[in-house]
């Protein structure tokens, strides 16, 4: 077991290296501003930077925007809507990247209060992607005086934009010598802009990575400085290809520097209740974490082996839900062999959940940094399962190396994992072969060639160029080349709306199929995680129950993204007496904590209904934004069949008893009929049933959400929400009229 006290501090760049970097910087322009201090969680200012003209400006955020959009994801979508038009694509000059934390973001007393939310038009989906990320940038942006940052334009040369709260300047600089790969770039910029070693913690960097330039599945890295380890750590805004937009705009990095962090920079309404609530949560972690999920010890991968017990971990491209190899990846193994213990691993101050684990001084065996020992930020559940079992890989060493390179190259581990799984299944089915992959043997479990493909992505070479496309465009390409049948690939290519699925198997949970299929941005689990409630607890047996859950949970979970909050402290730990409450799965004490935090910061009391209303406004806005961009109607909520049932015989046979029984108990065939059917016939009957179920589900959910059969929010419903804004009515009214006709 590696304990933090035995981890040697990392070496940063030398003085000589820093001098070279500093000397090579060219100041292109500088903009001075007067910092607005925060008041009750807000400055009400937005910083707009134009990387084309190298100009910056500060504007007020109007009261109506604040009232309806609150912050975080709401602000991001509002400003993005205003910048783009229905023809805008990810690389159009008018596409923007908007970032915002939220009113509760940047308090230091409670766990998970440092998130940044980001939105842009995605290269994968052509609709807005919203993503959330830890690290220090969002709070630092607030401390610098800005509730949101709007990035527009495109730069011809690679630039770094520095928001310096200590000097009250925004500068645009050429930084030609800094590396592109995140693990070095973040170190370089942190060291460069810090006044001294002690000041490094006051620097936050946003970067992509070398592969981001070429890949649709590129993400953004958000850094913070780990004082104990003496190195920068990175968290990821993973989904949707934001990194590609960032690089397409010619941005190498953003830097935000602050004077210092103290406990009440937000100038809150009632610090007492915030202190009390934070302390209550810290004590809850002390007393319960080791007995519950051991987040402090393992992080989110605690769940991997247990979720496999329920057949929920995607293995071999979501074909199956468990595999013997997962025994190599238990929490016990990860703790004892790979993840450093005893470090204070929060990704923002005050996070006692501390789940941002690391594998220290990890020896890389491949790639441009082969032979070096690095700090790997991991191993989160999604990365573990997506890069691991979903690709038939069960060796934590290999998974950590793939995770490291995805991070430093700026590649989303979820999209990379799900996409590689797709490519491996194509390889298995003969759609791909060594000739077509340029020599890569994409057999399940081949970590070495998986890594080689990743390195090719970074160099924009060979099959790496195909890997860079993402599943949606790969299917089209393979069909065009005559290598595979598109409708078959549509069945097992796990993407929807253009975004790769995240790493939970929803096959046996209709509610989760809807949870994934109806998520605004594409199949990401942040809106709904209903698998246990549905499949195991049997708490939502009817369509109405499921629809209620598919209304309530996405709205409740969206709230976190308006506030700058991480969802994990909500339910990855529960108070000891949680079982005695009326609704243990809501963790009522934590909901109360969040209401108290909101009150403590803003002075406003809210009920759960208020939280839902705040969310629903932004949620429906995003739905209509999707419609405006061409992908927000019923047809776009269709899901690939692998997400709902067995596509090929081996999948059906792996659960034959269950599926045969369902044909009798649920579908309503007789035992004799089922016995007389071939596997293909049984599969067809299963498929028809499940596909019909999904259609009925979305009918019920749409009704519950106040949308039409085509998935369009009605005018009445928008009026109820106070969101009958002219620009929204302009999008929905013609569609509503057409539907009625």
């Amino acid at each position, binding site marked *: 077991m590696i304990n933090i006290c035995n981890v040697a501090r990392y070496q940063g760049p030398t003085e000589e290296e820093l001098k070279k970097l500093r000397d090579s910087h060219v100041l292109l322009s500088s903009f001075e501003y007067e910092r607005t201090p925060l008041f009750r969680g807000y400055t009400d200012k937005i910083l707009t930077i134009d990387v084309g003209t190298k100009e910056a400006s500060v504007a007020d955020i109007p009261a109506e925007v604040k009232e309806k959009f609150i912050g975080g994801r709401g602000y991001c979508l509002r400003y993005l809507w205003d910048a783009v038009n229905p023809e805008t694509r990810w690389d159009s000059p008018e596409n923007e990247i908007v970032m915002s934390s939220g009113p509760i973001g940047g308090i230091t007393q409670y766990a998970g209060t440092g998130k940044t939310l980001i939105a842009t038009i995605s290269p994968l989906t052509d609709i807005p992607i919203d993503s959330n990320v830890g690290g220090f940038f969002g709070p630092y942006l607030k401390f610098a005086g800005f509730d949101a940052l709007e990035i527009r334009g495109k730069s011809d040369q690679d630039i770094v934009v520095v928001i310096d709260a200590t000097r009250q300047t925004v500068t645009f600089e050429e930084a030609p010598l800094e590396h592109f790969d995140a693990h070095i770039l973040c170190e370089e910029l942190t060291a460069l802009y810090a006044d001294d070693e002690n000041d490094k913690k006051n620097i936050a960097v946003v970067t992509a990575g070398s592969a981001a330039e070429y890949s649709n599945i590129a993400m953004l890295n958000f850094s913070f400085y780990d004082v104990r380890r003496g190195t920068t750590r990175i968290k990821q805004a993973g989904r949707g290809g934001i990194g590609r937009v960032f690089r397409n705009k010619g941005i190498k990095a953003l830097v935000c520097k602050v004077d210092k962090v103290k406990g009440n920079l937000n100038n809150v309404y009632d610090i007492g209740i915030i202190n009390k609530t934070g302390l209550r949560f810290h004590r809850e972690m002390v007393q319960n974490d080791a007995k519950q999920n051991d987040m402090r010890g393992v992080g989110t991968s605690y769940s991997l082996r247990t979720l496999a017990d*329920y057949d929920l971990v995607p293995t071999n491209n979501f074909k199956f839900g468990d595999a013997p190899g997962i025994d190599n990846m238990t929490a016990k193994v990860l703790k004892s062999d790979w993840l450093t213990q005893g470090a204070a691993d929060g990704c923002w101050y005050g996070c006692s959940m501390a789940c941002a684990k690391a594998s220290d001084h990890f020896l890389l065996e491949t790639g441009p940094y082969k032979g070096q020992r690095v700090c790997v930020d991991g191993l989160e559940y999604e990365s573990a399962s997506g890069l691991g079992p979903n690709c038939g890989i069960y060796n934590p060493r290999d998974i950590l190396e793939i995770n490291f390179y995805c991070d430093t190259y700026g590649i989303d581990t979820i999209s990379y994992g799900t996409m590689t799984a797709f490519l491996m299944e194509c390889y298995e089915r003969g759609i791909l072969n060594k000739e077509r992959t340029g020599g890569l043997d994409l057999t399940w479990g081949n970590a070495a060639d998986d890594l080689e493909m990743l390195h090719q992505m970074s160099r924009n070479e060979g099959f790496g160029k195909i890997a860079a496309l993402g599943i949606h465009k790969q299917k089209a390409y393979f069909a065009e080349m005559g290598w595979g049948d598109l409708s078959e690939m549509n069945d097992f290519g796990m993407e929807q709306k253009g975004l790769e699925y995240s790493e939970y198997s929803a096959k046996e949970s209709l509610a989760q199929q809807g949870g994934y299929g109806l998520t605004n941005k594409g199949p990401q689990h942040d809106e709904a*995680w209903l698998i*246990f409630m549905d499949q*195991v*607890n049997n708490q939502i047996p009817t369509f109405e129950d499921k629809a209620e859950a598919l209304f309530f949970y996405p709205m409740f979970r969206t709230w976190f993204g308006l506030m700058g909050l991480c969802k994990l402290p909500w339910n*990855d730990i529960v108070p000891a007496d949680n*079982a005695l409450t009326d609704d*243990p799965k809501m963790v009522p004490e934590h909901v109360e904590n969040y209401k108290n935090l909101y009150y403590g910061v803003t002075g406003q009391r809210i009920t759960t209904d208020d939280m839902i209303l705040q969310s629903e406004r932004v949620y429906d806005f995003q739905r209509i934004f999707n419609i405006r961009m061409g992908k927000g109607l019923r047809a776009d909520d269709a899901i690939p069949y692998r997400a709902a049932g067995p596509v090929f015989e081996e999948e059906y046979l792996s659960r034959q008893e269950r599926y045969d029984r369902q044909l009798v108990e649920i579908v309503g065939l007789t035992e004799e009929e089922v016995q007389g059917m071939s596997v293909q016939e049984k599969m067809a009957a299963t498929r028809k049933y499940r596909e019909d179920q999904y259609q009925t589900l979305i009918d019920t959910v749409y009704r519950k959400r106040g949308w039409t059969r085509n998935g369009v929010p009605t005018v009445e419903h928008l009026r109820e929400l106070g969101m009958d804004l002219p620009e929204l009515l302009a999008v929905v009214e013609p569609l509503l009229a057409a539907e009625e006709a």
Partner: protein
Amino acid sequence: MKLNHREYAGFREGMTVADVIRESRFTWPNLVVRLNGTVVWPEEYGNTVVGSRDNLEVIHLLAGG
């Protein structure tokens, strides 16, 4: 006997809550167990017997981050 509101096929006379959890492979660390509406704490799983007309809920608390 009902488990999470479904007929429990594996019921045996004299089985305990611990037996049901083990045989159902409910390995999830965060469970809320209620027998006929009353909470059963983990220490009691092994000595709480389930009857043929009982309603056992083994609620798995959420995951997903």
